């Protein structure tokens, strides 16, 4: 078979716009930035693989460069694929642990109280820092004793009684760490006369796997998820996800990064807020009571990239009495597993500083964001609690 090299990076005009928006290049002078790491470097690497640059490991795949590029170059993807092709990923036990979120979840969740107590202990943190290189200054996500799926199973009967049905891709975090958002989604959709069903099986969408170079595993997950989607879409209207990175990956990254064809179902995969906003626009609006709070909204990188901020803002603005202040669209710096790695701690914190400062300077009751990774980072670095937009929406239900 003819192996054609993807040369779409050649749409790059060398205008440098992407470099002006890269949070890593701003925080870490060792990173040459998206233009050089992406399209410039790709030309060289095609000529000679020896010209692969180690510094590419600094890229967090936040995709801010892609959002900024006037020529539509997929800079972040070019960088991820180059790392994969040239052995640019370190795949040690730490990377395995951080990226196999569903495996870690199913191991940890049954022993949640013990695991949670352990990961809070200083000596344990020190040990993880020394042996694995997971920075001890990080707060670890807690595990839940009752997974979202087991909670959900108790009410699958209620859900089945609704005439309209959607499938919910809950993702690892909602299932194993904090089911709140999943429960809130069920409450909101039920109030709109829509029932929720789960996929018979689901695997991690693949974001942390891609970020750590486990492309084969990610591809396997993608194939399983797609066959599950195809199956469940015969009975439900669409598949929705509450986590922006999951939604972006299922819809956009499967074909672009993993080369898994999702064209048959792609247009029926939705970011939760997009689905709900469309229902609102069609008049399917639940009764809402005022939620008299002042909140600051932080837009996650992957939600910006997927074009979803407009829907979250629509939902927040529909809640009576809620005052929403939009924070500067800057990256929080954690980028999932990136900020947990010892060598990235400083960069990660320095990227997020702008957001932390802005939040501290504002007099708000809560910070709101759609992404659980952003939530972790903001809660660790400010004294505010971070809520998911759906939690506020659920609170406003009468």
């Amino acid at each position, binding site marked *: 078979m003819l192996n054609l090299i993807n040369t779409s990076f050649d749409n790059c*005009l060398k*205008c*440098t*716009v992407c*470099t*002006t*928006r890269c949070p890593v*290049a*701003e925080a870490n*002078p*060792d990173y040459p*930035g998206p233009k050089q790491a992406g399209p410039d470097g790709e030309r060289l690497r095609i000529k000679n693989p020896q010209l692969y640059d180690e510094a590419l490991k600094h890229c967090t795949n936040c995709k801010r460069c*892609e*959002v*900024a*590029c*006037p*020529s*539509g170059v997929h800079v972040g993807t070019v960088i991820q694929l180059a790392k994969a092709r040239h052995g640019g990923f370190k795949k040690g036990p730490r990377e395995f642990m951080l990226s196999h979120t569903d495996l870690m979840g199913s191991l940890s969740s049954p022993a949640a109280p013990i695991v949670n107590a352990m990961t809070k202990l200083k000596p344990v943190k020190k040990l993880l820092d020394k042996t694995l290189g997971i920075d001890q200054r990080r707060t670890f996500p807690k595990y839940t004793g009752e997974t979202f799926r087991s909670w959900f199973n108790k009410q699958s009967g209620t859900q089945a009684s609704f005439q309209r049905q959607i499938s919910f891709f809950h993702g690892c975090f909602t299932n194993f760490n904090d089911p709140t958002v999943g429960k809130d989604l069920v409450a909101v959709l039920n109030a709109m006369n829509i029932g929720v069903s789960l996929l018979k099986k689901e695997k991690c969408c693949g974001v942390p796997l891609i970020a750590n170079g486990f492309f084969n595993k990610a591809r396997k997950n993608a194939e399983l998820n797609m066959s599950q989607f195809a199956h469940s879409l015969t009975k439900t209207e669409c598949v929705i996800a509450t986590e922006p990175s999951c939604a972006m990956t299922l819809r956009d990254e499967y074909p672009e990064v993993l080369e898994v064809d999702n064209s048959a179902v792609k*247009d029926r995969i939705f970011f939760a807020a*997009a689905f709900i*906003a*469309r229902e*609102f*626009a069609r008049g399917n609006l639940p009764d809402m009571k005022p939620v008299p709070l002042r909140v600051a909204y932080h837009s996650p990188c992957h939600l*910006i*990239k*997927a*074009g*979803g*901020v*407009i*829907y979250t*803002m*629509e939902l927040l603005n529909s809640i009576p009495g809620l005052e929403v202040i*939009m924070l*500067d*669209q800057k990256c929080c710096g954690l980028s999932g597993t990136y900020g947990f790695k010892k060598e990235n701690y400083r960069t990660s914190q320095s990227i997020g500083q702008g957001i932390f400062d802005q939040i501290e300077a504002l007099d708000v009751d809560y910070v709101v964001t759609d992404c659980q990774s952003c939530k972790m980072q903001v809660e660790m670095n400010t004294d505010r609690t971070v809520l998911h937009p759906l939690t506020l929406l659920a609170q406003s239900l009468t």
Partner: protein
Amino acid sequence: MKYNSIIIGGGLAGLTSAIRCAEAGLKTALISAGDSALTFASGSIDVLGFRQNNALVDYPFEAISQLPDGHPYRKLGADQVRQSLNFFTGQMAQAGIEMSCHGQQNHSRLTALGAMRPAWLSQPGAKPLSLAEPAAGLRRVAIINIAGCRDFQPALLAAGLKKHTDFAGVELTIGDIRADTISLTARNVYELRSLEIARLLKRDLFSRPEGLTTLASAINKAAGNADLVVLPSVLAVENGNQLIHQLEAHTGLRLCELATLPPSLPGMRMASALRQRYRQLGGLLLEGDEVVSGNFDNDRLLSITTRLNPSMPLTADHFVLATGSFFSRGLDSNPSSLTDKTFNLDVVTAGQRQHWSNQHFLNGSQHPFCYFGIETNDHFNPYQEGQVIGNLYCAGAVLGGFNPVAEASAGGVAISTGWLAAKQITAQYSDVRGNHVESH
């Protein structure tokens, strides 16, 4: 989902329009496929710098009446152009940048190649010179580079300046500030772009209490007692104008900051100030998504579809198309025709492809293609197959009928047409609601 107004394109034209709509309290969304031409722009605003015969324009607003029919400024009239620029200056001031001008008169701004360009508004750091006598009061000009900065060539600037007869009697000196004297610890300074220098200075120098005085004394040492010190714009992204001001106080010198090769820090500063202003007014900014089609019903645009959310059209009462020119991909061309990429609106073109441009790229004569762009009526409503679209307005570089480069009018046309689009939109709300909506 429904908005009062949706603005397509986040450049100077789109941002001006969006700010004005948001300020009037309209539910506004701004969608922009990528960053705009402001990332390359000088950070000064041209209104009208040259006449059709290439002569310099002293008073841009007065010269508007002599422009050819069909020019965007002729549709606006001088008064509205002036009002729009006042609105713009006000918004920039609210976002922390006090633009300066010489009354109603143009000034000269220096370019990194030593050319003199007429402009009407400049950021304070640009140190506007007089149009008629740019060298007035200058005996010695020092051109200082951060050693190795590859975006700025002092010798080229000096050679350019020497070509002006005004500068014949001015002594030009060239100096360097070595990276290590100002605590820059980069891998290799010779690899650095202006933006990277600014970031390093912020981290390594200005984070220290004595940072400013260190830089000030390095400038003093390199510049001596020149009447004007020219520096590449590499010092700061956000608060560059304030920093120049502080350095002037410390050095006792007059410092001029020149935009370098792209990325241009003064242009980025302007873009981020405008975005910040729009956000403060409660506007919704969507970057990285692209409008791919419109749903038209006779003379109205009902909704638009974007690349990332094809199954959910966005509805609005009014739309502004400010998608820029060829570089921003607002306009597209193929061997036989020119099109508006977004909605396929009618465009102004002329003849066969071989007549679109002159043989020589930079020979001073004008290229016909510079005038190409969307054709509109006097209200800046475009046509689709001859039919006026009444609730859609076009603004900025996507418009036909003017030559941004040869006239030096890009910024002014973007601002004034963006402003007018918003003015017409907000006026309709005062009609509908029966109460008066802001009109500057």
